[in-house]
């Protein structure tokens, strides 16, 4: 459904079957499908974990944790069943890549889940897909059914003696459910309120059993690592950042789209060459490099390598692969406000700094944007955000605070330009709503 794009700099690994009818299981088999699982069945579990570790594959859900390392935390012996949970809640603003994987290559996700299972001694996996993605849930349901019919799932898979069940699960609308512990709560039929860690899911997860939670793209990368080898995958990117990434280019670009580029691809090149530059030849103002939770970069800060470590050094994050490009005509106060509106709406309300902080910030930013701001609000916005950092049960509080702090710091002048009754300098006359002093 969603349009596919391409660019010569792309290195197609996860996307190599896109547009090739690989939802059809026979076609998938022709395109090397289910070979990796069979290979894994002949390997020692530890060897699989080490292979994935050495490949430098890091979590594509946002945090960038080494996947093999995560798997190694699962205890070998467990009185309770162990589980694999694929995170397909994809709701981080700016991110639309898992959608393409589910749409074009659902079997690769199933394969990744089974391999993670073999590596950790688990016998069941769940693929959680957000409720809005109903058509993708249907594609996945069919893919799972087809795999069962061939004996690729269920008892004695591929005649190996190993049993592995894969189940689908649909959500019903909630960003916070993408957070790993809230995801488990949701799968257990509850409100998506996070769990306190430790214990970590690898030790105590779904129904109390050890659980590996990985993003859909992470899992879809795994079969390619098994077939291509750790060294090949590692070398696609800079050290410790193996492989490629599906970058979702959006915003004020001439050629937005989802492109698979090597880890460490230069952001400036990504914007100006892959994405075709800024629409209408306008100037770049800011970039959200990895979904709305990441601190924004200014136009002067984009000559950076898009890998987890370089982005950290640049004071931001690689995040979920959502690159949102913002041009000179955009009001950054309004931009910050829209981001805060989102986090305020999605906060589960458990911790006070997040629940109250996002609400206050939304109100302050709304008033400010509509010309009802006073000078000390600017410092207050920053102070409030800084005091949310690290003081919450889950990272949503940080996710709301980080972009806000960066926007206030880097675009302070735009806040000043809104001060004391001045209309928003970026809005056309008459467009702004009347100033609400205590909205």
């Amino acid at each position, binding site marked *: 459904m969603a349009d596919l794009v391409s660019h010569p700099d792309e290195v197609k690994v996860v996307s190599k079957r896109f547009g090739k009818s690989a939802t059809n299981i026979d076609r998938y088999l022709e395109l090397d499908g289910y070979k990796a699982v069979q290979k894994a069945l002949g390997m020692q579990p530890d060897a699989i974990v080490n292979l994935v570790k050495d490949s430098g594959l890091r979590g594509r859900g946002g945090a960038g944790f080494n996947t093999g390392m995560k798997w190694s935390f699962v205890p070998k012996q467990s009185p309770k069943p162990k589980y694999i949970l694929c995170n397909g809640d994809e709701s981080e603003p700016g991110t639309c890549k898992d959608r393409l994987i589910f749409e074009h290559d659902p079997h690769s996700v199933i394969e990744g889940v089974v391999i993670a299972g073999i590596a950790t001694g688990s016998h069941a996996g769940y693929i959680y897909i957000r*409720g809005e993605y109903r058509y993708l849930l249907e594609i996945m349901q069919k893919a799972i059914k087809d795999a069962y019919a061939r004996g690729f799932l269920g008892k004695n898979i591929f005649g190996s003696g190993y049993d592995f069940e894969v189940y689908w699960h649909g959500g019903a609308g909630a960003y916070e459910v993408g957070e790993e512990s809230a995801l488990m709560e949701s799968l257990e039929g509850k409100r998506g309120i996070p769990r306190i860690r430790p214990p970590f899911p690898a030790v105590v997860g779904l129904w109390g059993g050890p659980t590996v939670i990985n993003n859909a793209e992470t899992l879809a990368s795994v079969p390619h690592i098994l077939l291509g080898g750790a060294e090949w995958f590692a070398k696609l990117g800079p050290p410790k950042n193996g492989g490629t990434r599906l970058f979702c280019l959006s915003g004020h670009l001439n050629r937005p*789209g989802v492109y698979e580029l090597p880890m460490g691809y230069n952001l400036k090149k990504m914007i100006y060459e892959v994405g075709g530059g800024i629409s209408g030849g306008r100037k770049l103002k800011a970039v959200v490099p990895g979904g709305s939770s990441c601190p924004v970069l200014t136009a002067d800060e984009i000559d950076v390598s898009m890998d987890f470590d370089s982005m950290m050094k640049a004071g931001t994050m690689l995040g979920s692969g959502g690159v949102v490009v913002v041009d000179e005509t955009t009001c950054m106060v309004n931009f910050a406000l829209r981001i805060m509106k*989102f986090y305020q709406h999605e906060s589960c309300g458990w911790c006070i700094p997040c629940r109250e902080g996002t609400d206050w910030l939304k109100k302050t930013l709304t008033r400010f944007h509509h010309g009802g701001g006073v000078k000390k609000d600017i410092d207050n916005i920053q102070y409030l955000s800084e005091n949310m950092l690290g003081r919450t049960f889950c990272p949503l509080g940080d996710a709301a605070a980080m972009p806000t702090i960066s926007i206030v710091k880097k675009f302070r002048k735009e806040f000043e330009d809104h001060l004391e009754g001045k209309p928003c300098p970026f809005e056309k006359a008459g467009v702004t709503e009347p100033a609400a002093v205590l909205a």
Partner: protein
Amino acid sequence: MKFSDQFEARFSDMLTHYPTKRSVLVPTLLYAQDEVGYLSPDVIHEIAQRLDLTELEVSNVISYYSMLTTKPRGKFNVQVCTNIACMLRGGEELLDHCKTKLGIGHKGTTPDGTFSLEEVECIGACSWAPAAQVNYDFHENLTVEKMDKVLDEYRKN
């Protein structure tokens, strides 16, 4: 309370997927809503009974998830994304246009029950912004003109 055969088949199947009955709750609620139109007191009662939960427990879960509703919506629920990627490409103007055209606001329903309207958060169509969903169908790279056509198509059905 009577659901379709497909619902029942899926429900029985889902029950075999998990070690606890309760785990089927969220997807089951959404499937029930798709059939009935909303989560009426009858639906809540029925599902609570089937899963050995109290109605309060079920309502508590319903109130958490943005797609679940205890109030009837229009036949076509128009969900316009105004989150950042869509906002930059005219998502807010699109929402305003829908408000004017349909004569309803956020979470409103037209008097004839054909359309309801909702401003929604990111729906995973950022690279094809601005985007909207009508029920489960995605509509992408929208303009005001395209949106008009989309709405007219639904109105005909």
